[in-house]
C-alpha cells in the first residue's frame, strides 16, 4: 500500500498557490529586514488616510471607503438605467428599440475614462428644477459618469436574461390578459433576476475596479490621495503604497468575482 499522502489535483494547485503566497511573504520579510521595514511603517501610519481620507480614520471623507461608496451609488443608478435600457432594446416599437440600441452601443463603445471626463464637462454645476437648486458636485458627476457605461453593459445582461426565459411564459401571461408592463413586472423579471445576478456581480466587480478612474474628477478617492497627499513621501516608499493600494482593490474585488463564478455555475443548469 502506498503510504504517501495523496493530494487531489485541486489540492496540489492550492498548495502551489499557497507556496507562491508564502514566497511573496518571505520576499516581503527579507525586504523588510533589508530596510523595507521603515517603509512599511510609513504605510502603516498612513493606512487610515488611504482607507478613509483622514489621518485619524474618522470621519470618512475619502480614500478607499469613497471608492466603495462610489461603486455602490453607481451600481444603484446603473441597475435602474440598465434594466430600462435592456427592456427597451427588446421593445416591439422601433421608436423605442432603435434609439435604445444606439444609446447602448454608443455607451458600450466609449472608453470609461473618456466618458467620465466628458460627463465632468457636459453636466452642469447645478440644475434648477421648479426653483429647486440641485447641485452637481464632482462626486455626483463621478457616479453618473461611471453609471452610464455600467448601465450599457448591464442592459446586455438584462437582455440576455429576459431572452433566456421560455417564450411559453410570455404566451401564458398574455393568454391570462396581462399587459406587457405587468408581464415584465410579475412574470419575466422575477425569473430573469436569478439569471442576472452573476452578470450583475461581475459588473459590480468591474465597476469597483473602474472607480480608480474617478480620480480625474478630483474627488478624494484612494488614487487622488496616493498622488497628492503622499507626494511628500520618498519615491522608494511610494512603491509600498502602490502595492498596498493594489492589494486593497484585489482584496475587495476577488471575493466578489469568486462568488459570482459560483453563482454562475449554480444558475447554469436551471431551466424554468
Amino acid at each position, binding site marked *: 500500500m502506498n503510504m504517501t499522502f495523496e493530494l487531489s489535483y485541486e489540492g496540489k494547485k492550492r498548495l502551489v498557490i499557497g507556496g507562491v503566497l508564502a514566497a511573496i511573504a518571505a520576499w516581503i520579510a527579507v525586504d523588510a529586514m533589508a530596510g523595507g521595514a521603515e517603509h512599511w511603517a510609513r504605510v502603516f501610519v498612513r493606512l487610515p488616510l488611504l482607507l478613509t481620507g483622514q489621518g485619524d480614520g474618522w470621519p470618512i471623507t475619502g480614500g478607499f471607503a469613497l471608492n466603495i461608496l462610489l461603486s455602490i451609488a453607481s451600481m444603484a443608478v446603473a441597475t435602474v438605467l440598465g434594466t430600462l435600457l435592456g427592456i427597451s432594446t427588446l421593445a416591439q416599437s422601433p421608436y423605442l428599440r432603435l434609439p435604445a440600441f444606439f444609446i447602448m*452601443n454608443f455607451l458600450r*463603445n466609449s472608453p470609461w475614462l473618456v466618458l467620465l471626463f466628458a460627463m465632468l464637462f457636459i453636466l452642469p454645476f447645478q440644475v434648477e428644477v421648479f426653483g429647486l437648486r440641485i447641485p452637481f458636485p464632482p462626486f455626483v458627476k463621478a457616479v453618473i459618469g461611471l453609471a452610464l457605461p455600467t448601465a450599457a453593459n448591464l442592459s446586455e445582461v438584462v437582455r440576455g436574461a429576459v431572452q433566456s426565459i421560455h417564450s411559453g411564459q410570455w404566451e401564458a401571461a398574455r393568454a391570462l390578459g396581462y399587459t406587457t408592463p405587468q408581464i415584465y413586472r410579475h412574470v419575466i423579471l422575477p425569473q430573469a433576476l436569478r439569471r442576472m445576478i452573476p452578470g450583475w456581480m461581475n459588473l459590480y466587480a468591474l465597476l469597483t*475596479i473602474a472607480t480608480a478612474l474617478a480620480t480625474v474628477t478630483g474627488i478624494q478617492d484612494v488614487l487622488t490621495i496616493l498622488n497628492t497627499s503622499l507626494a511628500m513621501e520618498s519615491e522608494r516608499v511610494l512603491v509600498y503604497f502602490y502595492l498596498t493600494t493594489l492589494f486593497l482593490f484585489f482584496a475587495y474585488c476577488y471575493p466578489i468575482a469568486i462568488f459570482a463564478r459560483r453563482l454562475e455555475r449554480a444558475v447554469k443548469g436551471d431551466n424554468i
Partner: protein
Amino acid sequence: MFGLDYSWLADPAYQNWLVTGVINTLELAALSSSVAILIGMLGALGLSLRVFWLDALIEFFVEVFRNTPPLLQMLFAYFTLSTLGLKTTDPVTGLEVPLLSAFACACISLSLFGGALAIEAFRSGLETMPKAITEAGRSLGYSRWARFWRIEVPIASRVCLPSLTNILTNLFKTTSQASVITVPELMYYAGQIYNDTFRTLEVMILILIIYVVLVSILSYGMSRLEAYLTLPGYGKGQ
C-alpha cells in the same frame, strides 16, 4: 450648433495633434492586443496541459491582473520600471534616463492586463472542444503541439471570437488610460488641446466621438471576421 465652438479645429497644429494622437492610440492598441493574444494562447495552452504547478501559476497571474485596476497597474509599472528600476545613461547628455519610455510601460502593462483576460477567453474556448476531436487527432498521430496548433486553436479561436472581440474592444478603450502616465495618445492630446483653447466641452465631445467610431470599426471588423471564419457546427454556425 448648440452654442459649441469648433473653430479651433481649423488650426493645423491641433489637427496635427489629433492625427498623431489617433496614430499613437492605434499603435498602442495594436501592439498590446497582439501580445495579449499571444499571452492568452500560451496561457490557455499551459492550462490545457493539466500540470498542477503551471495551472496554479497561471491562475494566480490571471486573478491578480483581473481584480486590480488597469490604471493602477499602469501607474505601478511606470513608476517602478522607469523611475526606480531599469535606468541607462544617455550617451549625449550623460544624464540617467529611464530605459523604458512611458509608451513601453503602458504597452507592457496593457499586454499583461489584456493577456490575463484573453487566457480566460481561450480557456473557455478550449474547454468546449469535444473530446472526440482531440482523440481523433491523437489517433492520427498528431503530437501535443500539432494537436494544439492544427486542431484546437482553429476550432477554439472560432468559438471564443465573440469574447475575444469584447476583450480587444475593452483593451482598446483601456489605452485611453495611458494618458495618465503621459503616453502621447489621443486622450493625452485632448488634454493638451483644451489646456490651450479652454474648449473643454467641445474637445471632450469630439474625442468621445472619435473613440466610439474607432471602437465601433474594431467591433464591426471583428464581427465580419467572425462571419468569415464561421465553421458549420461551431460558434455562430451552430
